[in-house]
């Protein structure tokens, strides 16, 4: 019998997140011959999302719809996903290393008495088994991990494993499964949307990050404009967060988020080792700083020495003109 790998889907505002498609590609990397079974939970009708997951490479999708799955809770989603896992007895499980993935997968791993490799950025072959590459010490080093016993359970970092090409000629069953989701002890009373403006940091292809050099909260405005023009998200250094120019949710670094966008523009950031740990694996780094000695220039692909308040508006205009 061939292997079976479950991909746990993640949706937001009615559509699947890109990282779910990346997880399908990861499952294919683990075993190109495996049957890939998507599992999607939610309170709304999930048939379209299931179909979309088929287009991106899943062979079959199980959807679980229940009123108690409207907002993610580890208990609600845990029960739903576990019901599917128990029914399918997969050889592997893959999910995105997102806020939800980080919360749900250790719980499932404990329940399944399984190992779990978190936050893989690549999957290689090591003899006849997959090896998972993951950053440690916030990207200051990498480790390669293998599974020595039981399930191949892994979460993947968004933005690192490219999804397969969407193919509308693919077909597969999308089957709704009834699961009774009960006894939830952690109730979500309210969600205060702070990040809804713009793109999520961990999935952003472009990040414009500000540091102390931005001087105050108002100084972040041009950065938001630049991010907007580029379709990216705004981040910050710890210095900027500590100085209350912006929320800690934006912090990038060893404490804070670790990001790997295609383009990282560091504005008024000196480049402390803790900050570099959070972003130095970005594909292209641009530094804008008035101090030519700033450490950030040592890891930037391109640097501009000068006043950010002079440079950013010009940069915005120039990008608009070539786009």
């Amino acid at each position, binding site marked *: 019998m061939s292997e079976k790998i479950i991909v746990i889907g993640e949706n937001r505002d009615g559509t699947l997140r890109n990282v779910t498609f990346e997880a399908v590609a990861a499952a294919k990397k683990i075993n190109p011959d495996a049957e890939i079974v998507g599992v999607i939970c939610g309170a709304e009708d999930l048939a379209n999302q299931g179909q979309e997951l088929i287009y991106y490479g899943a062979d079959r999708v199980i959807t679980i719809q229940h009123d108690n799955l409207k907002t993610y809770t*580890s208990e609600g989603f845990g029960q739903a996903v576990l019901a599917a896992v128990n029914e399918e007895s997969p050889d592997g499980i893959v999910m995105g290393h997102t806020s939800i993935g980080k919360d749900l997968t250790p719980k499932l791993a404990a329940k399944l008495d399984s190992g779990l490799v978190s936050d893989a950025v690549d999957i290689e072959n090591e003899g006849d088994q997959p090896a998972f590459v993951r950053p440690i010490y916030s990207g200051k080093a990498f480790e390669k991990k293998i599974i020595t016993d039981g399930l191949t359970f892994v979460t993947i970092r968004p933005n690192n494993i490219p999804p397969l090409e969407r193919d509308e000629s693919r077909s597969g069953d999308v089957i709704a499964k009834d699961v009774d989701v009960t006894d939830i002890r952690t109730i979500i*009373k309210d969600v205060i949307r702070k990040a809804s403006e713009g793109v999520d940091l961990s999935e952003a292809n472009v990040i414009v990050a500000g540091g102390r050099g931005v001087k105050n909260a108002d100084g972040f405005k041009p950065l938001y404009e630049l991010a907007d023009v580029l379709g990216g998200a705004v981040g910050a250094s710890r210095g900027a967060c500590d100085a209350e120019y912006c929320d*800690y949710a934006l912090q990038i670094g060893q404490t804070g988020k670790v990001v790997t966008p295609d383009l990282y523009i560091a504005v008024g950031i000196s480049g402390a080792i803790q900050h570099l740990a959070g972003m130095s694996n970005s594909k292209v780094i641009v530094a804008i700083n008035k101090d030519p000695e700033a450490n950030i220039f040592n890891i930037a692909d391109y640097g501009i020495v000068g006043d950010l308040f002079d440079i950013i508006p010009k940069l915005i205009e120039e990008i608009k003109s070539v786009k």
Partner: protein
Amino acid sequence: MNIYVLLKRTFDTEEKIDVSNGRIEDESAEFIINPYDEYAVEEAINQRDAHGGEVTVVTVGDEESEKQLRTALAMGADKAVLINTEDDLEDGDQYTTAKILHAFFAEKEADLILAGNVAIDEASGQVGPRLAEALGIPFVTTITSLKIEDNTVTIEKDVEGDVEIVETSLPLLVTCQQGLNEPRYPSLPGIMKAKKKPLEELEIDDLDLEEDDVEQKTKTIDIYLPPEKEAGRVLEGDVDEQVKELVSLLKNEKKVL
């Protein structure tokens, strides 16, 4: 209230990482309490001061971890427990650590367990949720506020920048996120007192565990440094020229626009 903190000793964030023979060099490194665990210690102390009870910090590690446990005691924790695996286990993963902690907590009546949301070294963030699941208690990760009134617990949770207001009850495990509090520095009298506070040392057989019970499920087969990033190019000319050149490079050479 019976409050516990899960604490890990980690490399100082200032440290550069050296690797030799597929292992991290740690001979000359400075070690600290994992920064996220510091939030957990601070919060535990504040909750104890508000509601009474006792704070116990627990670590799974080797005898070197005693230093970080003493620091937590100097901050204001009441007791410390070191589960020393140095002689019994060569290696382990998050499965191992969670199993050991589960055995430790099985006999305890913890009302509240706090941990960091992630350790800055291995960064798996698994141990807290794994332990809660094993103990059959609810957990909330990445919290930025914690209010306990009678048995009702109201939490603010960071979800990728959004804030969720979560209501739950004790017993409970939470993992702490930046923004929760400002960890205090140990005071001099605190440091003096810490020397006399109880620090219990256990080994896994004290928890009725054998090596096989906690055998890891995953294994690290190599560790290496990322490719050295070449120092970049600082653009020249006046601002307009630099901006033009930058955009052209990003568009045509790097193809990221």
